[in-house]
């Protein structure tokens, strides 16, 4: 019988320190058994359980895109037992990943639409996946205008510098990167994400908004989008809750009748408005 709790063994191929406080690192994993890469077929917005034998498992969003072959990427914030252990791991170490898990961004339903993608802090991980996927020549034609608004406290806290710098040079995506306040050496935009959104967001006509960030950013961005005319079905968000099984069985992550791990993590604001705020 197939065992959905069993991780695929992977090797840590590369660890990249993302932020100046060194609290965020991106792990590049390579599957020990090449056939497992086929089995781990994912779509943008999904997550996986990263499994460190002897320490535990944690749910982390998949930061790479299915169009990037040969490896998978996860960006991990150091907060507790498993994340701290991972921050001390070395390239070449063996661990496991279990997944892909959860639903994903509705990439099929979003076809033909303009997109405004709004991210704050390190919640940008699965949006890196989404944008990379949409910008792939095989997919770019299926979507309209893409506007990416991404903010962090300071320039040193922005993830994926290489990626967004490249996006800023392209003409098929508007990548607007902002930091909370003036900073020596930063000649980019300054301002909080909700304010910048109000200034640059496209019209809501035939547009969907993907919003990921800390609760405070979500709280102030939601009214801005509503003011701009976005309806609750046009706003798409991704939730986090404490998890264990990741497959809708252990009963840990529910928000009302929905399991964040299996029915989510991606929900529209319309769905969330019918659910208790237990996240």
């Amino acid at each position, binding site marked *: *019988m*197939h*065992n*959905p*709790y*069993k*991780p695929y*063994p992977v090797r840590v191929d590369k660890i990249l320190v993302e932020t100046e406080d060194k609290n965020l690192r991106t792990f590049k994993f390579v599957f*020990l058994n090449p056939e497992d890469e086929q089995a781990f077929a994912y779509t943008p917005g999904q997550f996986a359980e990263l*499994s460190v*034998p*002897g*320490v*535990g*498992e944690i749910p982390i969003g998949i930061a790479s895109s299915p169009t990037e072959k040969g490896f998978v990427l996860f960006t991990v914030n150091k*907060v*507790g037992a498993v*994340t701290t252990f991972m921050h001390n791991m070395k390239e070449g*170490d*063996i*661990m*496991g990943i279990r997944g892909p898990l959860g639903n994903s961004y509705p990439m099929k339903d979003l076809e033909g639409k303009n997109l405004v993608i709004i991210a704050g802090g390190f919640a940008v991980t699965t949006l890196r996946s989404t944008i990379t996927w949409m910008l792939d020549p095989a997919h770019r034609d299926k979507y309209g205008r893409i506007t990416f608004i991404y903010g962090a406290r300071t320039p040193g806290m922005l993830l994926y510098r290489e990626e967004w710098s490249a996006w800023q040079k392209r003409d098929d995506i508007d990548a607007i990167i902002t930091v909370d306040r003036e900073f020596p050496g930063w000649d980019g935009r300054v301002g909080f994400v909700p304010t910048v959104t109000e200034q640059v967001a496209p019209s809501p006509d035939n547009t969907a908004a993907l919003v990921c960030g800390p*609760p405070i950013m979500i709280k102030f961005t939601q009214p801005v989008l509503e003011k701009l005319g976005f309806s609750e079905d046009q706003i798409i968000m991704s939730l*986090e*809750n*404490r998890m*264990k*099984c990741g*497959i*809708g*069985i*252990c*009963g*840990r992550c*529910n*928000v*009302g*009748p929905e399991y964040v791990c*299996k029915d989510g993590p991606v929900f529209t604001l319309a769905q969330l408005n*019918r*659910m*208790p*705020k*237990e*996240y």
Partner: protein
Amino acid sequence: MAKYLKKSDLAGFIGSLAGQYQVLGPVEKDGRVVFAPAGAADLKLDFQNSHTSPKDLFFPQSERMFQFTLDPNKEGAFVLQDVDLAPAPRLVFGMRPCDAAAFFVLDRVFKNDQFTDPYWQVKRDATVIIGLGCNQPCPTCFCPSVGYGPFHEDGLDAIATDLGDGFLIKPLTEKGQKALAGAKGLTDPEGKMDEKAAAIAAAAQESIKSEVPTRNIYTRTVMELFNAPHWDRVFESCLNCGTCTYVCPTCHCFDIQDEVTSAKDGDRVRNWDTCMSWLFTIHGTGHNPRPGKKERVRQRFMHKFKYIPMKRGGLIGCVGCGRCVNLCPVNIDVRDVVRDMNA
């Protein structure tokens, strides 16, 4: 076709089954009835119900999922290895219909539209359950109100009715049929045994006086129920001790932990967990989506009476066994809570 088993032939019956199955049933241990491996002489068949539910037969309180080694010199270091999951064929004699119904509900939890929990499933597949209807339900039972009953058949492979001198045993599934076909001591029923059994079942159903209306719960929205004022009252006396979740046959939440068992070797295990604990939901950041007792008490009842029915075709996630009513140290009574939810 139902068969008759004289009580004086019970030993031969159990003995013949013991050749093919490990036989388990209700036995008395330290003054309490529990389900455990049993010979005919150990069986305590005049019990009301076991103290805790027999869910541990399929979902042990602590269960090894994988083993691993952290010794880099050993082959397969840091890679989780399978452990043997399936028990030898087992037969449970005397499980109460409420508990069997609870496992019928849990079959729909441990196997959803995408994933099957192999640890649960292999134990279910390897086990035949011959239930024993409740001639005399306890005063705290309310199974009929939640869609089950003292002679409810879902989840059973055969059901026995105690007729006094013997049991009338009716097979319900192929698995049950097969087990009975190989057993000694069974005879064809005589006279009006069928009618007698039906009368006993009807009288048992009739004797259950606790009525708990649930209808309005299913027409109200999640948010209406969630925001109802009675939650501000219900939780106050709760100690969050978790007894209710421990004894409940449908409570199935678990934690997964790695245990390093020797210098370099370890197991990944799962353990029963409880939504009554604040640790259950707290994030690594310190944020807790269910920060207080009110939120946790509400979750337990909403899960059983609203969320499970919404997601599992109307099946209620409480089978009315009454264990939590009997054992809650501060007398929180699920029947009162449901009356409030329905009011």
